[in-house]
């Protein structure tokens, strides 16, 4: 019996010791495997935690992103996925702590393999973009917080373009101000990313009223990589020329150019919005004091003792532009307002004549409040232009002592 009890006691002691050992090993192993627990491992192994290393370091970390913090994917096909790996290097002389901050994008941010870099060490961050958006362009970012004194956060940026099959550059065609009397041409480019496609076809102008005044032609061209580096991988390119004949209706142009390809089934109709304005050969333009729709210059109330001045421009375009000579033939109120014409200047297709309006100091009292059509002053500019021989400017002006 005693032997049995002794045996039990020995067994119990042995088992207790063995169990404790097992338990300790199991827990320790667990912590090491799963926790990477800095505090626990530091305690058990006497190693420093990441935070401790950074805190206790005497050197200064400095972060360098090898190859820069931005990467251009260029043009990606819809549905395609591309990645770029940014390499972070500690070029300082103290440990560098890295933490992933906000990612403002749909990028997939790869694992940051090491969050503490000793001097000279490197780590990777991979940004992946899946081109599923319907937007043509994308630019996305992710932020890495660092312990480097001069770079507390590093913003990584990837950007590029998504091409379904064809890309139109620019994405909208701005015509600016068109002359009613002169033809004008604009061009845009189409880049093809489909192997099977050989041609563009069926160009159409959406605005029925101006359809007969618009001609659209296209021709294959070499890809100008310097001008369009984002399309260096396109398979072919086309230059499309849009010519507007004289005689368009005055006012706004809002239309679309549509066209097809030899892969209509797959690609569908392509389109480009177009906007601009058709104006006469002589137009008056000016800042906020001038209403160009009504040709009204609002000088407002002026103290006679102070006087005032303001300038607008007479823009001349079209075939008679070079020979036009404007002159002031009438000023009302004559004694309270001086008007002079300055030296013209060519900008683009237009010649601009500055018109200077001055209410001289000491001008007599004047009252053209502009309350009714008769209640305006008036300045008449005469030109030798074939179709626009006289231009009137209505003046709203009160001169008070």
């Amino acid at each position, binding site marked *: 019996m005693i032997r049995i009890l002794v045996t039990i006691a020995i067994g119990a002691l042995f088992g207790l010791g063995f169990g404790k050992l*097992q338990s300790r090993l199991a827990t320790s192993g667990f912590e090491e495997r799963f926790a990477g627990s800095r505090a626990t491992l530091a305690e058990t192994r006497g190693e420093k935690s990441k935070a401790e290393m950074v805190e206790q370091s005497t050197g200064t970390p400095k972060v360098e992103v090898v190859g820069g913090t931005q990467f251009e994917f260029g043009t990606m096909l819809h549905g395609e996925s591309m990645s770029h790996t940014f390499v972070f290097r500690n070029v300082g002389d103290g440990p560098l702590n890295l933490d*992933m*901050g906000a990612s*403002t994008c749909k990028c997939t*941010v790869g694992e*940051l393999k090491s969050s503490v870099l000793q001097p000279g060490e490197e780590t990777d961050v991979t940004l992946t973009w899946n081109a599923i958006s319907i937007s043509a362009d994308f630019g996305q970012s992710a932020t890495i917080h660092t312990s480097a004194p001069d770079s507390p956060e590093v913003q990584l940026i990837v950007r590029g373009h998504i091409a379904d099959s064809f890309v139109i550059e620019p994405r909208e065609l701005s015509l600016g*101000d068109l002359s009613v009397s002169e033809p004008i041409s604009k061009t845009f480019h189409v880049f093809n990313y489909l192997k099977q496609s050989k041609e563009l076809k069926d160009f159409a102008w959406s605005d029925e009223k101006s359809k007969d005044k618009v001609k659209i032609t296209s021709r294959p061209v070499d890809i100008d990589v310097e001008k369009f580096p984002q399309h260096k991988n396109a398979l072919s390119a086309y230059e499309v020329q849009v010519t507007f004949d004289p005689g368009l209706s005055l006012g706004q142009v809002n239309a679309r150019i549509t066209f097809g390809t030899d892969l209509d089934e797959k690609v569908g109709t392509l389109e480009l919005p177009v906007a601009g304005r058709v104006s006469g050969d002589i137009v008056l333009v000016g800042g906020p004091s001038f209403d160009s729709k009504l040709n009204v210059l609002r000088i407002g109330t002026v103290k006679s003792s102070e006087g005032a001045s303001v*300038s607008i421009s007479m823009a001349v375009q079209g075939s008679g532009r070079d020979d036009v000579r404007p002159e002031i033939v009438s000023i009302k109120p004559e004694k309270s307002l001086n008007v002079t014409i300055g030296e013209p200047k060519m900008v683009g297709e237009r010649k601009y004549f500055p018109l200077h309006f001055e209410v001289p100091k000491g001008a007599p009292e004047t009252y053209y409040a502009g309350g009714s059509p008769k209640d305006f002053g008036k300045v008449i500019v005469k030109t030798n232009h074939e179709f626009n021989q006289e231009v009137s400017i209505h003046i709203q002006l009160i001169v008070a002592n």
Partner: protein
Amino acid sequence: MHQRQLVWQRLFLVLVLSGLVTLNACMDSKPSPVATNNHPSADSPANRHDQPSKSSAKSSDSERVKQSRAPAKVDPDAVNDQGLVVLETVLTPAKDVTIPDASPSAPEVSLTAPGNASTPTLATDPPAAQNSEPASPTINTVATTVNSRSTNLPAEANVATAEERNQQLAPDWPQPQAVLFVSGQQHGYIEPCGCTGLENQKGGLIRRDTLLSQLRERGWNLVPVDVGNQVRRIGRQPELKFKSTVEAFRKMDYQGVALGADDWKLSSIELVQFAGSDQLSKSPFLSTNVVVWGDPSLFPSHRIVEVGGRKIGITAVLGSGHKGELQSSEIEFFDPIERLKPVVEQLNQEGCTFKVLLAHASLEESAEIARQVPGFDLVVTAGGFGEPTLNLEKIEGSPSLMVQVGTKGMYGGIIGIFDDAQQPVRYQRIAVSSQFKDSQRMLAMFAEYQQALTDAGFDKLGANFVAHPTGRTFVGSETCGDCHSSALATWENTPHFHATTSIIEPDNERGGIPRHHDPECVSCHATGWNPQQYYPYETGYVSPQETPLMTGSGCENCHGPGSEHVAAELGEIDVTSERLKELQQQMVLPLAKARDKCLECHDLDNSPDFHKEGAFEDYWEQVKHYGKD
């Protein structure tokens, strides 16, 4: 033999007891359940929802275990397009940060952690100070951001987080001499549309005005500046939008505004009329290196604002990278660096003590300009993507600081200027969230904008009819329902059915402003429009009176115009049986292609919930229908 039996018996007993005691010892040590094989999986919600940090009590063993498991759950495939989920894998809270127990059913916790986005971050903070705090603001900021994004939404979605709706404005700033408010890259988003709930969305002049008012109520000398791109398209509607924005800027007393590349694409006449200067009327819109009509006085190069004893010089440039985007021959582009040099000299001569450059340029070019033209204290850049950084950036090779503004007007930033040699400048990024209530005067302005669209009409706004690429015309959902009655019944019980009504009488707090004359709204809220280009197809919606069959987002918006199919089925045209089947097949939208079709309206701006993982399947359940009855 007996002795041998006895020995074996004793040995057996020892082993049994050893086993029992071992088991007991293991249980006494009480390791976390996750130490067994029964712990939640790495992808369980407990791990997906990171918890906020508290720099207080030390972690228990089990807590350490939980926070330590994050690195084990890296699964790029599982987080495709959800980069933020992956971000959790690299979170390494400081050693004394406690992460509370997370249960699989734990809801998201709203955060008030110090150092979150609402806490000012000092550009001039000594870095050592950050490192000396174990639970540093940086770490907390990271935790905050990740937690707030745990909804599986792409972060670029216009969705305000809980902390973005509860920001404290510069809580610990002393009285500044002046405060710059920076904004830009509005891209036409003059208001959050409310499609996904106004509470969720960021941005809008209606809120920005309230934010600026709150800052002014502090007695601050506020100097709002903007780095440009108020619109993103060309045509009449963007012009009217630009005009409204300029009027709003005047009301908000903006002191300096750059013109962006997209602004310069507008009609020059309208641009100058709305935003230009002349001798009688000064505008805050500035341009150093882009000149319209050869007259630099229309957009002056700089402006000097005197506030709080400071003389602040503001100037603006368009970067060379945008030169190619200028299409009008009336506009001249000059080298920004050469044009800026004399401007800086002039600002110096006039005694400016703080010089600001509004650089409508990429990040790289903005920095390069600062290096090439020394003297700017602050560069406000239109470069960058997504959210602005939390800190001001130091420009390498230049003493200038740089600030981003983000996109779509979702963020602003305040830069305090102090009479303090140690911290002369402080910065805080601010989300323009629903925290800032609607400004009544901006609502009135927005109503005027909608009225201007109404007055112009679809045609003058460029939303004129275009033949559908298929050559077919729209018949209306009721006609479809003649044969597809169960599909029609399903549709009538979805929000698609009420899509037009919802913009005629919006049910949100801005309901007094109908939007059914706004092509940008109608294109997704009625039948027969191009949703991304904002124009109607022939026979598409005009008004409830003129085209009653085209109200709601009807069948044909997804399946295409049905005229030929209907005519063939009704025997109005003679077709072969093969052609009949072909026409039927043309109307079929396979589920595999449906998602792309939905995305034309359920885009990231207007329907961020649609971009959550698995959202399409959930949405489809709500509208599910198949073919003919």
